[in-house]
Structures are given as structure tokens and as C-alpha cells.
């Protein structure tokens, strides 16, 4: 029965997709509750898998059917192990609460049927990705979530002015349809490279099945390592997919623009679930490369971990720094998401740095994935309510909203504290786990980067919260509240309910934080060490836990205090500081322009490709077309003209000339034919004398 639950998890949302248009014929309300009901059943199926975690020795469970038998073998199946059960629950349960929120948020939208279909399609695809037992089926889920994401980011495809993001004036705006295109193309860069990596692995392993890849690694991994640099190449290719999907450097630039979708879409796809799939997939690959380095002794395998860790650290720092200056509420949260996923990647990377850290790093990455999914989903849902209430996407057009949105203030406050890393909320525990794993790896540069990022996180979190709920009301807000029957207030009940439930979940999970951490450690120890036989060593900390806690809390305070003085109490004047220091202005410009990476990529890849396309169409194609379709026919016609000339002059000339000559000769001869016998005799005598003379000379 347990494995059937996994199949149910896959099929229920897809049934929801098919049922939605049918239910729409009954009525919009029936369709709405029907769509949410399917997501509820999905969540229920996922929750029913949780007891398996308490009997982890029965795991992994697998069920599969043959999908393709020739010329390559691919099965379609589901795999239940601690990682897939945990992530499937994160996806299914959070999705359900977000769907509940949507009942209120999307009320009255004319395209609501399309919305519910895409949402359920997304949930089903995401669960396919998580529960798949082999890399091709996982990749199908991977592409389908990208497709749903494309549809949901560009949900407001008519590009009405109110859905534009970017700005404010004079900065450029982005339209939803363009944002969807950007997200789909950028993530596809990683997808295609990853598919290459998967197929190269298949060539050596002859299987796509995840468990078989682990089990047969002793046969195929050394074989692959015989080709110099191939392991490094495969590492880069396999990491490219997660880098794209999880918006990590250098493929991180799509996520800020993905915020053009409806608020709950950002919560579901671009905070809680899809963007985490990269971390999930890295976790899937870890046992292979860990085996390669620590058991098979393939040196190149360490590059996998180094690349993952450094990409994570760089992304965490880079995105957090951009969050310091952003003015769009959802973009701040988007930068924050990118940054926090960097933390998860970092933890997964350091898991391979030593035999003592495998389970610790693996657990820390997954733990942060779970806690971040909860508090970031809550933050995005609250942001949706705030933006809906204020009719502005900019935090500087808010302020003093606490009295208008008291529940949202509370829920968003709890989630923000968790993001900052304030104990005992879950963000504190999971972030501390990441910090411990990084410090214990003794890569101090990585640790320094991540500590600075904690400071940035504390600063931008306090900043946006202060600018939204505290201080003075902005001019925009005053205009809104001055309107009769203004809507500056809490959203519909389902919205507040969903945010409230997530906030309760955050507090509960936070209170259970240390126990959850311990349980996860134990589960992954069973999965990686007992089941998969990874060669590990017992974790013996070099640094005391209190040092990490002190560093963590100290970093938080370094970030929170100035932000509090700037944006809560307004003791310090942020504008005065900005005006006074040229250095601050320069840094602000640099960060506001996203380190100029977006502009650079636009210049190279968008303009570059379009210019290449124009060059091909306007120059090369014109030249080739001219050469083949014009010059060759012209050449043929020239030859034809020559042939014509030859025909007229040479052939006709010879024939005509011959005829003329014969005619002339005949004419001349005819002159001789006078008809007088005497003339003929005279000629005959002359000819006879000539012939006789020549003959005589020859005989003589």
C-alpha cells in the first residue's frame, strides 16, 4: 500500500487538471473547490507516507513498469526513500495551503480555469520529479515544471500595465510575457546540459535507475574515470541543470523577473518547490560522486563537490547583496530565495569534503530546504496580501501598515525572523546546521562568505519589514487610504488562514527544531551509510557549537541593528547617508544594477544571438542564396547563351557556310556551263593535258 501512495501522489493532481474544465461547466465555485480538493488529496497521500520515515529500514521502496525497452531501457517508476518522502511532503502540503490561499487571491479572475489547471499540473509534475525512480522520468518532471512555470509566470500574458515589474521610473519595466520567456530559456540552458550529462552517465552505466546507479557505481564509475577530465565534464553538465532550475550563479538572473506571476505562484514555484528541485537533484547525485572520490579514489570526483559548494557560496552572497537595495517587495524575497538556496547548495557541496561531513552536510542542506520552504512560502503569501492591499509592488510606497494588516504583520514577522535566523525559529536551526557543516569543512573562505551573507540577510529582512509595516506611511499609501471604501486591509479569509497555518507551522517546526535536526541526521545516516554503504567516519566536531551559535547570532545582530535604526526607529536617515557618501552611492548603483550581470548576459546572449541571427539572415543567407539561386541559374543561362551563339555561329555557320560555299561554287561552276560544245572540248583538252602531264612526271 505504501508505494501505491506514491502513485496516488502523481495521479491525483493530474486528475485534477483533467477534472477542472469539466467542473467549470458546473460552476466556478465548484471548479475552485474541486481543484483545491485534488491538491488536498495529494497532500493527504503524501502525509500518509510519513510513517515510513519511522521505519526507515523498510526503505527504499520502488515500483516500476517498463516504459521503453529498445534501443535503450527506461522504466517508469517511483522511489520512496527518506529524501523523496520528505521533499514530496514539502511539495504536497505547502502546495495545498497555497491552493487554499488562491481561493481568495484569485477570486474573480477571468482566467481562473487556466490557473487551476496549471497549478495542479505543476504540483503533479513536481511530485513526478521528486518521486521518480530514474533520471529520465525525473527529467520529464523537471521539464514539465519548467513548462508550468513558464505558463504561470506569464499568466497575465496580455501584459497590462498593472502587472509589469521592474521600475520605478525611470528604470525599465518588464512585462509578464517576456519574463516567462526569459525564465524558460535560461532554465533550459541548464536542462539541456544536464540531459547531456545524464546520457553520458547512461553510456557507461547502462541504466537510468537511481538505485541501480548507486549499486553499480563500482563498475561504471572507474570506467568513466579512465577518460581524463570526463568526470569533471560530467560534473559540470549534471550541475548545470540544478544551477538553472535553482537560479544559482551564473544562471540566476531569471528568478527576479519570475516575480511577474501571481503572488501565490511565486510562493509555490519560485520559493517553496520548483527552485528547490536543484538542491534535491544534487542530493540525488551526491552518493555517486562521494563513492567516486572516497571509495574509488577518483580525484576528479571532488570537483563535483567543490563546484557545488562554491556556486552555492557565491550565489548566496551575490543575491543577498542585491536584496539590500531592491525596492520591489517580491524581488527582495526573490533575491532572498536565490541566496538561501545558495546556503543549501553550499551544505550539499561540503558534504563531500570529508568523510565526517557527508551526513551532516546532506542533512543541513535538506533541513534548510524544508524550513526555508515553509517560511518563504509564508513570506510570499503575505507579500501577495500586502501588494493586493496597497496596490503597489514597491516597499517605499508602503510603511506603517501594521495597523491595517495586523495578522499579516504577525505572520510575516514570524517568517521574517525565521529568515533572519532568530532562535528558536526553524531558520535559525537549519542555518546553524549549514554554518556548522561549512566551518567543520575548514574551508574558511567559504565560511567567511556565508557569515557575511548572514549579515546581509539580517539587514535586508529587517529593512523590508520595517519599510512595509513600521515608520511613516508613504504618500502612496496615504492616497490609497484616503480613498473612500479603500481596500487597505487583510485579504479574504482563505488568504489569512493559509498564512496563519504556515506561521503556526513555522513556530511548531522551530520548537521541534533540534529534534527535527536529529531525526533527519538519523534518517540520512540510515539512507547513506546503512543502505548505500557510503564509507563515512563518525562526526567529531573541531569547533564548539557555541562558537557557531555566537557567530551566527552576532552576524544577525550586525545586520539587524543598523537596519532597525534606518527603517524601524528611523533614528538614522538613510537618505542622508546615501547623499553624503559617494562610495555608498557607487555600491548602491552596482547592486541596483545587479552587479551588471543581467546587462552583460543580455548583451552577450540576447543581443549577441539576435545579431548573429540577423547576420545569418541578412549576410550569409543572402550570399548563399544569391550564389546558388541566382548565380547558378545565371551561369546556366550564360552557358545557354553561349550554346545559342555556338549554335548560331559555329554549327549553323558551318552548315550555312558549307551550303553557301557549295552554292557559290555551284554558281561559279554554272557560269562555266555555257552550253557551247566548243567550250567543253577546250576544257577537256586542258584537263587531259594537265592529267597527262602529271602522270608523265610521276612515271618518269
Amino acid at each position: 500500500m505504501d508505494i501505491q501512495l506514491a502513485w496516488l501522489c502523481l495521479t491525483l493532481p493530474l486528475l485534477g487538471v483533467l477534472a477542472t474544465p469539466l467542473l467549470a461547466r458546473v460552476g466556478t465555485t465548484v471548479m475552485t473547490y474541486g481543484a483545491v480538493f485534488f491538491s488536498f488529496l495529494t497532500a493527504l497521500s503524501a502525509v500518509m507516507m510519513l510513517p515510513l520515515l519511522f521505519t526507515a529500514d523498510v526503505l527504499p521502496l520502488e515500483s516500476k513498469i517498463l516504459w521503453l525497452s529498445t534501443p535503450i531501457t527506461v522504466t517508469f517508476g517511483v522511489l520512496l526513500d527518506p529524501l523523496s518522502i520528505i521533499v514530496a511532503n514539502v511539495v504536497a502540503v505547502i502546495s495545498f495551503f497555497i491552493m487554499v490561499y488562491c481561493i481568495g487571491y484569485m477570486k474573480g479572475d477571468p482566467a481562473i480555469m487556466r490557473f487551476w489547471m496549471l497549478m495542479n499540473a505543476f504540483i503533479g509534475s513536481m511530485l513526478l520529479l521528486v518521486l521518480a525512480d530514474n533520471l529520465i522520468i525525473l527529467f520529464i518532471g523537471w521539464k514539465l515544471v519548467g513548462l508550468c512555470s513558464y505558463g504561470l509566470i506569464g499568466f497575465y500574458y496580455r501584459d497590462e500595465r498593472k502587472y509589469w515589474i521592474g521600475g520605478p521610473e525611470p528604470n525599465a519595466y518588464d512585462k509578464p510575457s517576456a519574463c516567462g520567456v526569459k525564465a524558460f530559456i535560461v532554465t533550459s540552458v541548464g536542462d539541456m546540459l544536464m540531459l547531456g550529462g545524464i546520457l553520458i552517465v547512461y553510456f557507461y552505466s547502462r541504466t537510468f535507475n537511481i538505485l541501480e546507479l548507486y549499486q553499480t557505481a563500482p563498475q561504471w564509475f572507474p570506467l568513466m574515470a579512465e577518460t581524463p577530465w570526463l568526470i569533471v565534464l560530467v560534473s559540470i553538465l549534471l550541475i548545470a541543470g540544478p544551477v538553472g532550475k535553482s537560479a544559482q550563479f551564473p544562471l540566476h538572473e531569471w528568478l527576479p523577473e519570475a516575480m511577474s506571476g501571481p503572488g501565490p505562484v511565486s510562493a509555490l514555484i519560485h520559493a517553496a518547490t520548483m527552485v528547490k528541485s536543484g538542491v534535491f537533484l544534487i542530493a540525488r547525485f551526491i552518493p555517486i560522486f562521494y563513492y567516486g572520490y572516497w571509495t574509488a579514489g577518483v580525484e576528479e570526483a571532488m570537483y563535483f563537490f567543490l563546484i557545488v559548494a562554491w556556486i552555492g557560496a557565491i550565489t548566496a552572497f551575490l543575491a543577498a547583496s542585491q536584496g539590500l537595495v531592491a525596492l520591489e517587495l517580491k524581488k527582495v524575497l526573490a533575491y532572498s530565495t536565490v541566496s538561501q538556496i545558495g546556503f543549501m547548495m553550499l551544505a550539499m557541496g561540503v558534504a563531500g569534503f570529508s568523510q565526517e561531513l557527508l551526513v551532516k552536510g546532506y542533512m543541513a542542506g535538506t533541513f534548510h530546504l524544508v524550513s526555508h520552504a515553509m517560511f518563504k512560502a509564508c513570506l510570499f503569501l503575505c507579500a501577495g496580501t500586502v501588494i493586493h492591499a496597497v496596490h503597489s509592488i514597491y516597499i517605499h510606497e508602503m510603511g506603517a501598515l501594521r495597523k491595517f494588516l495586523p495578522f499579516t504583520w504577525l505572520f510575516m514577522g514570524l517568517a521574517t525572523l525565521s529568515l533572519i535566523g532568530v532562535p528558536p525559529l526553524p531558520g535559525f536551526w537549519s542555518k546553524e546546521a549549514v554554518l556548522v557543516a561549512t566551518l567543520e569543512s575548514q574551508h574558511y573562505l567559504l565560511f567567511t562568505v556565508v557569515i557575511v551573507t548572514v549579515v546581509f540577510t539580517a539587514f535586508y529582512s529587517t529593512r523590508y519589514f520595517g519599510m512595509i509595516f513600521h515608520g511613516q506611511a508613504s504618500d502612496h499609501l496615504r492616497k490609497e487610504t484616503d480613498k473612500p471604501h479603500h481596500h487597505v486591509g487583510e485579504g479574504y479569509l482563505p488568504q489569512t488562514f493559509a498564512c496563519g497555518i504556515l506561521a503556526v507551522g513555522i513556530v511548531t517546526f522551530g520548537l521541534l527544531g533540534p529534534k527535527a535536526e536529529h531525526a533527519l541526521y538519523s534518517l540520512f545516516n540510515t539512507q547513506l551509510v546503512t543502505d548505500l554503504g557510503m564509507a563515512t567516519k563518525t562526526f567529531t566536531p573541531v569547533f564548539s557549537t557555541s562558537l557557531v551559535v555566537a557567530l551566527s547570532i552576532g552576524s544577525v545582530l550586525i545586520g539587524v541593528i543598523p537596519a532597525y535604526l534606518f527603517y524601524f526607529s528611523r533614528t538614522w536617515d538613510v537618505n542622508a547617508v546615501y547623499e553624503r557618501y559617494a562610495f555608498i552611492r557607487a555600491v548602491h548603483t552596482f547592486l541596483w544594477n545587479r552587479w551588471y550581470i543581467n546587462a552583460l548576459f543580455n548583451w552577450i546572449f540576447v543581443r549577441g544571438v539576435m545579431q548573429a541571427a540577423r547576420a545569418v539572415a541578412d549576410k550569409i543567407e543572402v550570399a548563399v542564396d544569391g550564389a546558388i539561386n541566382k548565380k547558378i541559374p545565371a551561369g546556366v543561362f550564360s552557358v545557354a547563351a553561349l550554346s545559342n551563339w555556338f549554335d548560331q555561329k559555329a554549327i549553323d555557320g558551318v552548315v550555312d557556310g558549307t551550303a553557301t560555299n557549295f552554292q557559290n561554287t555551284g554558281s561559279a561552276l554554272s557560269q562555266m556551263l555555257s552550253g557551247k560544245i566548243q567550250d567543253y572540248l577546250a576544257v577537256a583538252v586542258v584537263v587531259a593535258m594537265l592529267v597527262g602531264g602529271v602522270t608523265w612526271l610521276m612515271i618518269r
Partner: protein
Amino acid sequence: MMPFTLLQTILVPALVALVILLFRYRIGKKAGWVAVSGLIYTTGLLLAALVHIYHGGPVIERYTILSSPEITIHLVADGLSIAVALICNLLCLALCTYSIKYIDHRIEILYPDLDEKGQINYFTSFFYLLLPFPVGFMGVSFSADLVMMYFFLEVLTLFLFFLMAYFGYQDRVKVAVMCFIWGVFSALFFLGGVVIIYSQVGSFQMDQIHLLSGHPLAFWVILLVLIGFFAKLAIVPLHVWMPWVHAEHPTCIAGLLAVYANIAAYIIVRMLVLPLWDDFQVFGPPIMIFAVITMVYGSLLTLAQTDMKRIPACSTISQSAYSMLGIGALTAASIEGGLFFFLSHIMGKTVFFSACGLVVYTTHIRDINRLGGLATKMPITALLFLSGGMMLAGIPPFSSFAAEVVMFAGIFERGDNLGLIIGIIGLVAILLTISYAVHFTRVIFFGPLPEHLAQDDHVRDPSWIMVAPLVVIVLTSVALGLYPSLIMNLFEPVISGYLANM
């Protein structure tokens, strides 16, 4: 199974064409449905043959026309040919149905001064000129004889000329002549190869070609036929006819034109790769290099287009090369994947082209810069266009995804650096397909609706007669994507089995 099944699939459309021609004034505007009925019948026959092949092996039919000198018609349907024939026939059926409304409209625009009799004359002529296409496709698929194959290739070229000259766009006659010349060019190279084979083997039968294996002339046979078919497949630099032709022909036959070009991939496998396996090896790397250049070139060319009809034209250049990439890699998986991609591509291209046609049919605008926001008024067309784009880009659940996976697995299976490098470049090149699919969807269908389109009441999704056939193709592609074994199990005994026995 019904007797003369394969022969019927060739003769029935020809006879239906003849009936339409002879009774055109009596049949009138029902000519389209008469043609559709004929094709439904042949589709049924092909399905019966498919079931037979699944359970019992190849279907072979031999008909002696003359005993002295011996002239026979030899038809063979195995897993490979039946899959090609069935998909081609399905596309012919879909496009024939799609054309019923389209061509009526086209005749009104092209020949506005015609009286009713004249209109019926043109209307019926479209269908009796269209039906030779299924004749040609079935003939090419099932011919076991090279001369017959040549004959059917020429049938396609000839009737393409007439259709384009009568029903195309501005420069239709000039471009029809160009297309005809390119078709003849291609067929003559093919014929050159056939003559050499006959000179050495003494037979035109396909199952005798292997006797040439190892002979020095085998190289020249392969070279000649490849040059001819590179032109048909529009491989760079022999692609220059494709944008012209696609820009001028009536959109309702665009899908058929994609099949016309791509069927060369099938013939290459049948005639060259399998029988002359060892001799073909030397051509593998150059084919892969040409293919990957064409993939990138064609995609860039597509991205630069602003004419609705040239977009899919240039896309065909790029997409045809995918099949050749698979074939050039010369592993069982790459060849099977390449041929599966050929089938997936012609389905995708039919939907993509026809969706473009729906836009042109409805708006009478070809310049995409004058379009935009059409999804508001034409949501089904938008969905079809996007589906067509995704079918080309190999996005699941469409069959092209499974085809790509199998094909690229085969390319990496070469195990050499060339396979590795070209495989990765090929995968990255798919990005360009994805890019233009979503880019053009955005430009044409998303954003605000321009005023002139918003106020035009004719701008709406066309009737179900035009939409339903495309939906059927999309669903077929999804079905094959969800269960690719349906196709791969057919290919396996012909290709993997053949290569395993070598």
C-alpha cells in the same frame, strides 16, 4: 488482413483523385470530404497492416505486370515503413481535412472573378492534385524497388509544382519552377546512384543493394544519393530553396512539404545505411558536422524571420538536420532515434505550420510585427502554435522528447570525442529551437491586442474543421511521447535486429 492492402494504400488515393477529376462538377464542394473518405479508408488499412506487423512480421506483396520482360511491383511493409507510412498518411488526412475550409478561402482571394463553375473547378483541382501526395508517400514507404521509389519521388515533385503554381502566393509560379528544378536535381542524383547500383548488382531490388558492399563504387553511390538528399533535406548549403518554397506555397500543404523533405532521411536509412553499413561509416562524421551546422544555422535563420510563413520554413531546415545527426552517428539507438525524431518533427511541423496558417487565414497578415495579443481572441490557435513549437523543441510529453533522448543516447554511445562534442553542441542547439518557439509565441499571441485586430470581428479561432485535425496530431504526438515503445518496438527488428545480425 484484407488482400492487396499495401497496393490499395497507393491506388485508392489515386483512384479517388481520378474520380474527383472526372466528376468534379457533380461532386463540387464535397470533393474535400470525398478525399478525406479515401484517406480514412487507407488509414484503416494501414492500421490493420500495423497490427499484423506487430503480431506476425512484415507484409509483402508482389504483383507481376508483365512476365516477359519481367516487370513487377514489389511492396514491403515492415516495422520501419509502416510507421513512416502511417504517420505520413495521418498527416495527409489531417491536412486534407484542414484544407477544406482553407482552400475555399484561398481561391476566393486568388481568383476573385471566377464564376461558380470556375470556383468548383479550382476547388476540386486542389484535392485531385493533393491526393498524389499520399500516393507518393505510400509508394516511397513501401517500394522495395529503386525505380519505383524514383517514380514516386518524382510524383511528389510534379504535383507539388502544380499545387504551388495554382494555389501559392505572390511569386508562386516562379518559385514552383524553382522547387521543381530542385526536386529534379535531387532525383537525378538519386537516379545516378541507382544506375550505378544496377550496373554492378544487376537488380533494382532494395534487398540486393548489399551485394555492392565493399565495392569501390559503393562510395560513389552513397555520395551521389547523399548529395541529392541533402538538397531535399535542405542541409546547408543546399537549403536555399526551402525558405522560398515555404514562403509561397499554400499553408495547408506546408506539413506535406515538411514530409516531402524529411522522407529522404527514411530513404537514406533504407537504401544506404543498412545495406552498405561498412561503406557508410566514412560518411558518418561529415554528416554529423553538416547536420550540427545546419541545426544552428537554421535556428538562427528562423530567429531572424518576421514573415509568418518563413518562420516554419527556416525551422524545417534546422529540424531536418536533427534526423541526419542521428543517422550520421551510426549507432542503432541514434538511427532509431533519428527516424523517430523525423516522425515527431513532421507531426510538430504540421501543427506549427498549420497554426501559422490559421493566423494568416484569419488576419490576412504575414508580418509578425503587425501581430500580437492574438491569444485573447484565438486561444486555441495560440495553444496549437505553442504545442507545435514544443513538439519541435522536444519538450515532454510530446514524442520528440523521447526521440531526442534515444537519439542523443545513441550519439553518446559512439564513445568517441566527436560523439561527445557534437552531442553536447546538438543539445545546446535545441535551446535555439526552444528560444524561437517561445519568442514567436510571445510576439504573435501575447501582449496587448493591436487596435486593428481588436476591432476585426473575423479574428477568432477558426472552425473545428481546421482545428480538430491539428488537435488529433497533437494527441497522437502525446500518445507516442507517453508510450514511445509503440514506435520503437516497430523499429527494433528492422534496425537493431539488422545491425545485430551483421
